[in-house]
């Protein structure tokens, strides 16, 4: 059985560490990346089943990064995480684009559930079954 590969891009080391600890416990292959530029570099050499991206990072915002990657590598699956759902336009974009979203802080179960959902989700039918994330946002 192929190991699912996951790339986590977040500027906060503790978040990266947490994600690695949770996901590896479920046999995911996890690559950590503290910045967007490094993330793009990594993507040049390897493909991932899922990319987890934080929205607010010092260099740039995660949504723009995901857009950029999506263009470069169509069909890439994303899970957007953020500790702070403002400014508002981000939440609007997430809803509009029916992106998978998980608010921080999360428990291991919540992350695993969201990751599984994001990987299973067929890119073509995005939005049909993402009530969870949407529900989180609207909270």
């Amino acid at each position, binding site marked *: 059985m192929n190991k699912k590969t996951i790339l986590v891009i977040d500027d906060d080391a*503790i978040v990266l*560490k947490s994600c690695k600890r949770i996901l590896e416990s479920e046999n995911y292959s996890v690559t950590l990346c503290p910045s967007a530029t490094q993330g793009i570099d990594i993507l040049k050499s390897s493909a991932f089943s899922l990319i987890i991206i934080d929205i607010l990072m010092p260099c740039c915002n995660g949504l723009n990064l995901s857009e950029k990657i999506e263009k470069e590598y169509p069909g890439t699956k994303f899970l957007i995480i953020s500790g*702070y759902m403002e400014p*508002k336009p981000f939440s609007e974009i997430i809803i509009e684009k029916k992106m998978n979203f998980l608010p*921080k*802080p*999360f428990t*291991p*179960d919540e992350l695993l559930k969201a990751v599984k959902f994001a990987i299973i989700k067929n890119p073509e039918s995005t939005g049909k079954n993402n009530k969870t994330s949407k529900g989180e946002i609207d909270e």
Partner: protein
Amino acid sequence: MNHNIRFYLITSLLGLTIMVTGISLFFGTYQINKAVISEAKNQIGFDLRTTIKIYSNIEKQINSSLSLTALDQGWGDCVNGYNVQHIKKRLSDLSEIIGLDFSGFVRNDSTTICRQSGYNTTNPDPVINPVARIVLEKKSTVSGTFILTQEEIRAEDPKLADLSTINLINSSENNQQNIKKETSCLTIVTAVPVYENNLFLGVIYGGIILNNSTSIVDTVRETVFQNETFKGQNVGTVTIFLNNLRISTNVLTKSGVRAVGTLLSREVEKKVLTEGETWIDRAFILNDWNISAYQGIKDYYGKTVGILSVGVIESKYAQFKKDTFLVFVVISIAGILIAVLLGFILSRLVLKPVDELIDISKKVSEGDLSPKIKKISKGEIGNLQSTFLKMIDTLRVRDLHQKEESEKQLIMTQKQASVGRLAAGVAHEINNPLTGVLTFTYMLLRRDDLDEEMKSDLETIANATNRVKDIVKGLLNFSRQVKLNPEPSDINKIITETIELIENQALIKRIRINFDADINIPSKILDSSQFQSVVMNMIINAIDATDPGGRILVSTRINLSTKGTKHKEIEIIIADNGSGIAPEQLDKLFDPFFTTKEVGKGTGLGLAVSLGIVENHGGTISVESQPGKGSSFIIHLPLDHNNE
């Protein structure tokens, strides 16, 4: 407006002057007319009495001359010896002295033995002088005015009869009478009895004919009027009437000849001839208006047979009246001019403080609430000035209050926004470490080798952390609650209202705020009170950075997005021509607690919060500034999707 007051003041003064001078002109002229006429009447009455006196003096002169002649010695020789030449000599001497027209001597046997003319003395004379005839009977002196017939005159001297005949001049009044000629004569005659040694010898008589005579009337005119002329015309005239006919006059007809043969007006005739009264009044005599006086002449028998009349042409008085009127008019015009001048001076005096008030009002309306009035006047204007100053004071206090209110409101909004922003920041920063705590607690809890105590401890950590998570979530929710009250809003309207709210503050500093609104901007969903606080914050910053007399221009328009996407966005520019921002400060402008204002004046949060609010609405704020020239804060807001 004040020109109207000036106009009214001058016109009313003018009106008053015209009214007063008009009335005085009217009554003055009237009074003077009256006085002049009455004076003229008095004068003419006096002249008439003088004339009558002269007339009677002539009669007395003839009387006394004849009486003296009668007393001469030698009349008996003359009469008895028929020394006619001697008598004639005496008569002609007498006549020469006093100017008799006719004279004669009638002997006691009723024979006229001598006439001045030498005429008709040889034959027994059937016509004896009627006055002499009276004396023949009475044997005493008879003297007075008589009417003699043409025959009686002809008996004296046929030439005289011709000379004294008067041709009536045809005029409308004459038509009623068929008489073409007047042959009777008005005369002054004296007849004196002549005695010698108590023996009645006869009667000496003499007289003058008034018909066609010029000497009396001209003498009188010379005496009474001293030949005064007015515009080449004699002022005074004297006329003797036989009944109603002018027989001797120096009144001239239109053709310039003496108006002998013309008739007296019926009105005067009735008054004087019939009723025997003296008549003094205005009368139109032939060509001119005269002030005339008439009195009847009574003959020896006491019958009114003629009239003595004097007149003065009225135009002499008319000229006087005209001159007086002219003086009045000149005085009136002077009065009017003075009124106009006075009106100007008065209106300037009165309106000067009013003009000043108007200037000050203009300043106040432009926002200058500390104008000075140079000098407080007395009276009502002074009241107005002090009341006006009081009003400005009240306005100033109210403005200050308003400013405080709007500042308070702004600070409140800023505070709320700050709390929200703080909460959001805290939440963001806490959530990451919280993720770590939660992750590793739960991962530990998954281990099977935990004893109960350890498991319980870990569960306590997990619960406590979840509680922290909930608290942060609640804080975030609270900040969302504070922040968000989105509703479709008209950005132009929000800006207009904001400007209205702080316009007074700007006016106090004499700064004009203009708003150039693009009416095509669609409504946008946003939190209007937060957005208002952004605009207000920016305008207040602009006011603070601008010197008095400066300008602030707020404008809105729709622009292509600066982000390079095809989206359109709303652009709001708040530009001032104030002090500008130093380049090194531009980067820090939006940092919290950064301020260039004096301590206590700004919180340093205004722009940071504004940026937060604008970013929350998906927008951006940029700044362009040139030190000394001014700054522009540009807010970009994306259009709502349904408007793109």
